[in-house]
């Protein structure tokens, strides 16, 4: 076992699959010799050669199209979009094309593509780098959307994503890249896509989060415990499709729910989760399902990130509301 940061675990997952499957190709802007702007592909070109790990011209739609075309020749592309804020440039390739390959061709073609991209606030990037745009892709049929919150899960989920025969959007929260290390096995292992994980058990309230907000929820749970409130924390890990089985099991136990996302409030993952909970378990609820989200403004300029991003205090406040409803 080795201690790894999330970025190291991600590199390790790609290395594992580049070794396992000669059809895996890793490419994107600066991913070759430079190893990616976050060093996610560090050392991979040197190890696997320029035909397996390579730079692309600077055009995201081209990168998406390249992946779709390469798949017709039996390849398993793992393109990197340098920042997920550039989703708009590659939206057609992802949401208009690769998500529909299997459907459009009646099952005769498919797109076994894993689109990796960093996203998420708190690291003072310029505009259109940090936005949480997972809702845009989560609403697109045909895409799976995976967001890990720990190094161990990042490796297992990324290996599952690369092996998936349908497109997966794999979003890596920038703040988690190097924020902590944990034990990550050097051998290969997978974590199933579409399965949530209970990160902390509790009986009084269920906190549902993903990405960096999982850590905010865990911090809130620690604080709440001091006041005698035992919060259960669920990490969705996959925001499309969502694991409602794990959610409903928890809700039936706690009867109170707060859903947390870093993204703005309008539409989005938390709204969908809240709607499904009331459809599936309204008689188990003692209070309305509340959400902790960012406000419905454009993502702020870097200096103002802290006042804008949801944090553990916001979560504690909402928990107190559902407890005292």
């Amino acid at each position, binding site marked *: 076992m080795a201690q790894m940061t999330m970025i190291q675990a991600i590199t390790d997952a790609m290395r594992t699959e580049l070794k396992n499957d000669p059809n895996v*190709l890793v490419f994107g802007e600066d991913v070759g010799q430079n190893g990616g702007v976050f060093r996610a592909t560090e050392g991979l070109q040197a190890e696997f050669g320029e*035909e397996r790990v390579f730079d*692309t*011209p600077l*055009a995201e*739609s*081209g990168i*998406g*199209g*390249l*992946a*779709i*075309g*390469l*798949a*017709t*020749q*039996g*390849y398993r592309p793992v393109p990197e979009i340098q920042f997920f804020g550039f989703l708009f440039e590659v939206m*057609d*390739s992802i949401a*208009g*094309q690769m998500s529909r390959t*299997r*459907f*459009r*061709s*009646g*099952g*005769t*073609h*498919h797109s076994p593509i894993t689109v990796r991209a960093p996203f998420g606030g708190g690291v003072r990037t310029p505009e259109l780098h940090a936005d949480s745009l997972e809702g845009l892709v989560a609403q697109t*049929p*045909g895409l*799976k959307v995976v967001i890990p919150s720990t190094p161990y899960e990042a490796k297992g989920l990324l290996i599952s994503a690369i092996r*998936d*025969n*349908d497109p997966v959007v794999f979003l890596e929260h920038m703040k988690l890249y190097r924020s902590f290390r944990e034990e990550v096995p050097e051998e290969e292992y997978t974590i199933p896509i*579409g399965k949530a994980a209970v990160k902390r058990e509790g009986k009084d309230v269920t906190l549902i989060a993903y990405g960096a907000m999982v850590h905010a929820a865990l911090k809130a749970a620690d604080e709440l415990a001091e006041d005698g409130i035992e919060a259960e924390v669920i990490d969705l890990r996959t925001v*499309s*499709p*969502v*694991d*409602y*089985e794990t959610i409903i099991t928890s809700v039936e136990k706690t009867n109170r729910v707060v859903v947390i996302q870093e993204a703005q409030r309008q539409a989005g993952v938390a709204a969908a989760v809240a709607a499904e909970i009331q459809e599936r378990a309204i008689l188990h609820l003692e209070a309305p399902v509340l959400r902790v989200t960012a406000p419905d403004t454009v993502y702020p300029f870097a200096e103002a990130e802290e006042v804008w991003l949801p944090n553990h205090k916001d979560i504690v406040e909402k928990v107190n509301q559902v407890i005292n409803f």
Partner: protein
Amino acid sequence: MKHVLKDVESKFEMFQILNEDGEVVNKEFMPDLSDDELRELMRRMVYTRILDQRSIALNRQGRLGFYAPTAGQEASQLGSHFAIEKEDFILPGYRDVPQLIWQGLPLYQAFLFSKGHFHGNQYTEELQAFAPQIIIGAQYVQAAGVALGMKLRGKKNVAITYTGDGGTSQGDFYEGINFAGAYQAPAIFIVQNNRFAISVPVEKQTAAKTLAQKAVAAGIEGIQVDGMDVLAVYAATKDARDRAVNGEGPTLIETMTYRFGPHTMSGDDPTRYRSDDLDKEWEKKDPLVRFRKFLEGKKLWSEEDENRVIEEAKEDIKEAIKKADQYPKQKVTDFINYMNEELPLNLQEQLKEYEAKESK
């Protein structure tokens, strides 16, 4: 300051082999095609013209759905297609159904595509192609990927893709030719310049004098071809293919053509944006008339040949539309089953719901 634009543009002269009277004006580049191959090219053009006429009629009767007429563009579509091999990969636009048919797509499936039935897009392994692309230009970036994949696999094949004059304004057009150029990937990018993107004339589309010259910016070969001259289109595509499989990179081919019909059968009225005079001017360039004259001069085509192909086409179309009409209707459960290799949880639930509805 040295200004090079006019200089560069002047280099892009239209390549032609047959003039409007079917006379060879460019003997040097006359392709090496046998008499049988020349006759086959004519057969395909006549057959495709009949298919277009019948498709328009069937659309008006409500027996077909979405249809983009092809008359006028046969030389561009079929001349370029004639130059590619069975194992090459086609990425068509929505007007490029004839190339798929001559690559092996059964006619009834082409009709199912028009009607909006997914079976129309279920191609066999042998038919190396994507279904017609609806988003203008998206096929260009994908073609770069197919071509790069062929190069990495060491295949001696090409990806060939089609768009129109309007398509050359799209970002994906530039990204596609640039990516293919950067990787020296074996791709052939055809631009069928039929002069109108629905209603907008090519003069309003760009300041560029030719669309072929856009290749220069990507660092790839570009050529403008008489798109009403099937031999010129064939020769240019064959040359592009030979160079591509030889590792010499992609080519952009602009074919100067014209669609005699409307943009699609969904309510487009060309009289709103095209003059009678322009229509007449281009009808004189009809690729079938020109090639027929050439073949008749060589005693390779007769009225009997023509009539035989017309009858063959009509018979095939009759059978195919019957099959398409009787084809089993689509169900929501079909759609659910073709979304993913393994059904995700949400679709597992929805499948049960729709199975129950459909069994009622």
